[in-house]
């Protein structure tokens, strides 16, 4: 069994209203010195593949077909 951690984040320059709103909320709570807050989506995909290499290829296809939109997203895959 392998677990793939997929991290989907917004490309540099793409607006992140959720991150900006969270930053504002944290500042309103009194936290000081905050530079930025970014939202990131993480999927843990549990697979019964034997070979991590093959599994990673399949996860890459999952990212292309569903998990990320290349217009605004970068994604990275970590096999655990």
């Amino acid at each position, binding site marked *: 069994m392998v677990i793939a951690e997929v991290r989907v984040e917004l490309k540099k320059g*793409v607006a992140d209203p959720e991150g900006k709103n969270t930053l504002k909320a944290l500042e309103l709570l009194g936290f000081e010195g905050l530079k930025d807050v970014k939202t990131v989506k993480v999927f843990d995909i549990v697979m019964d593949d034997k070979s991590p290499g093959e599994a990673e290829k399949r996860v890459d296809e999952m990212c292309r*077909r569903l998990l990320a939109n290349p217009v605004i997203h970068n994604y990275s895959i970590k096999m655990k």
Partner: protein
Amino acid sequence: MKASQVKVCVLRIEGTNCEEESFAAFKRLGTRPEKVHLKQLTGTDVAHEEKRNLSDYQILVLPGGFSAGDYVRAGAIFAARMKSKLSKDLVGFVKSGKPILGICNGFQILVETGLLPAMSGVMSEVPEAVLGTNDSGRFECRPTLLRKVNKGSCAFTSRISPDKISLIPSAHAEGKLMFPLEKAKKIVRELEDNDQIVFKYVDPEGNLAGYPWCPNGSTDNIAGICNREGNVFGLMPHPERVFFRFTHPDWTRSPDGPGDGKAVFESVLEYVAKKL
């Protein structure tokens, strides 16, 4: 083809919630609409008598809602499921000149599927655009004013006069149309050259204006686009919600007549009557 012969496929999955209004609009105009679940087209987990063929319909409608809970990204799951099983049928449908309408979540689905903007070919392999989170970071539910900027390519707006401002309500959290940042300007120019931009968010004077006139911060205030042939059309606001005048928010103060959204449905029927 007469309206009474036109079969309209109003396609839904779990989480779609505007199929009734879309169905009612087409029914009212005398066509034969049918609410069809995606599984009926793909033929999975349905009884034989429930199976349907996309090619039996003349118009495909992807209604609004929150398909598959808007998980992953709005419209992404519906799009991926459709693309994995129905790619060929969809491409054939578009190539034969049959019209596809995507409203709100339907627009998000068309973009995620690659059927819009379809800068080259009928359906791109990966999305060429995205409907991202509104600049306000929240769900925007308000009447919006749309100016028709299309010069005649779009099959869904032929009965709307150029530059006419229509009141069509918006209700979405992810409606900001975006293109890859580094080539956004070039893409918008190309869309203009191809006459693919259909509606823009404006103020009452018809000027491109910021929030709240533009509810989401969309690139160039774009509210709706079509493919190069004009038979695939997607928009964030809901024309089916203002099919009748009495569902307009200001109906007691405006002159009698049809709702502003009705012309979208009449236009496509006129297109089908002429072309199919």
